[in-house]
């Protein structure tokens, strides 16, 4: 470990620990499921970046939304995201969470994922290569270093708007608001 890293470890040990052990929730949400197994197995080993899959969202701090999100999946994704403990980071994978992608005119997929839950970054591609995922992880590290990966803080701050958007598209939600006071804004 070089001296640069040592200083960072001593100054902000929690942040460094979060960065280098991004445990991802095992949830195959869409097309992108096809490039996640190569990433987490021996050839493109994601564990050297600290990324391993976990079984339950309660133990995870990274949420990879791989591919398009349908309406039923959006319900499941929001509940999963809300179960994760803070600090948590979410990354949109592929071109579908950005603007609808290839299914821009489908009645069952949502077009802009960041209007329903906060996204810290996107990986472009259809499907992105495993190397693109690793580059994204290193970018996420930089964002965490600079305190710019604040998706969970935005969720807390603008919760009323997020919840209103979710209700507008999904109708009645079966779970109570996560932040009962409605956030700050």
């Amino acid at each position, binding site marked *: 470990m070089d001296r640069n890293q040592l200083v960072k470890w001593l100054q902000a040990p929690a942040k460094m620990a979060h960065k280098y052990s991004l445990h991802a929730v095992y949830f195959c*949400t869409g097309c992108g*499921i096809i490039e996640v197994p*190569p990433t987490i197995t021996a050839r493109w080993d994601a564990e050297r970046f600290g990324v391993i899959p976990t079984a339950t969202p309660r133990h995870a701090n990274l949420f990879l939304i791989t591919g398009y999100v349908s309406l039923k*999946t959006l319900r499941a994704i929001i509940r999963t995201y809300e179960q994760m403990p803070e600090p948590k980071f979410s990354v949109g994978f592929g071109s579908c969470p950005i603007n609808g992608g*290839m299914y821009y005119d489908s009645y069952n997929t949502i077009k802009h994922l960041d209007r329903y839950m906060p996204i810290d970054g996107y990986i472009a591609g259809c499907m992105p290569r495993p190397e693109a995922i690793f580059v994204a992880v290193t970018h996420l590290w930089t964002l965490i270093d600079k305190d710019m990966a604040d998706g969970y803080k935005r969720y807390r701050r603008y919760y009323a708007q997020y919840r209103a958007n979710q209700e507008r598209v999904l109708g009645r939600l079966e779970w109570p608001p996560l932040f009962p006071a409605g956030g700050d804004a």
Partner: protein
Amino acid sequence: MRELELYFGPQHLGMVGNFSITLTVEGDRIVKAAANPGYLHRGFEKLMELRSWIQNFPMVCRMNVVEPDSMEMIYAMGVERLAGIEVPERAQFIRSIYLELARVGSHLFGLWAYANMLGFDTVSQWAMYHRDLILDLFEELTGGRVYHIYIWPGGVRRDFPEGFEDRLVTTLHSIGGHVPNYDAAFFHNPVFRQRAAGIGTVTREDALALGGTGQVLRATGMGYDIRKVDPYAAYGRVPWDVHTRQEGDAYSRIWVVRDEMIESVHMIFKLLDAMPKGDVYNRIPNPFKWHIPEGDAYVRCESSRGELGLYIVSDGGDKPYRAHVRTPSYPHGMTILEKVLVGEDIADVGNIMISLYVVAPEIDR
């Protein structure tokens, strides 16, 4: 004992793909199961009606993410049947080699999922690594690792690059050289036998009545394979065998998968030997102004999961009027899964689902 309704939901370590099953359990035994698809529904067939014939080619491969090549093949077959386009000899052979390579890749993916589910992590890492070697070959041939868009109406997009055949043969030999390791670690392992024998048995009557095809039917002793029944591409030109087993449980289905993988590799070598020289595609009309005559057609092929069919209707226009894809995971993942899960343990749900070789995007489209 009280009955409990349990959601084997989409976010679950035992679920490969975004699919959910509602289980009614009594203790550890399942009393009733109801499949709950729809998490991946995009209205694919409606979207196909809004895009022209040629624009649908990049779309159609995304229906089955694990083996997109058979989707391209079935759509090309449907369009060629409706428009009356002939495919040259060399292109038929290239298509067969391409599809068999995709089949090996898809079976290795299934082996990753299944071995991972049972806990044989070493074997699953090997399988995914060997599949990656095949994806390297695909990348050299077509430019993309997963979505290739290589099959074109009238042939294939381009011929094999210089030296591709040698690299193909070398890679397949190196993968084939590991088969004894796979056998020792997984297929001949008594733990695998204990975990899978007698689990998820599909009887032949059930498979025939509920529309089962592919490994589900071949594991019950019936050698039904579309490549033999209704030969397409170059499958009628080389000799090859259909592999079957008798018991119909998860153990036999995975053994059929292993035998088919080895058969596919041998088939590729035979096809490479028999391949003639020539053109690789016949020209189609201007794709921007391509109107296909009126009519309807049902074409089918054998994907790595079973019978894949397409019912395509044209009204003389430049877009398909109706395209309905009959995917093999539709009966396997709904009616057969619901029937087979009754009486099994909760711990075996993932085991049975992956051994039935269900891919969730195929069900929902």
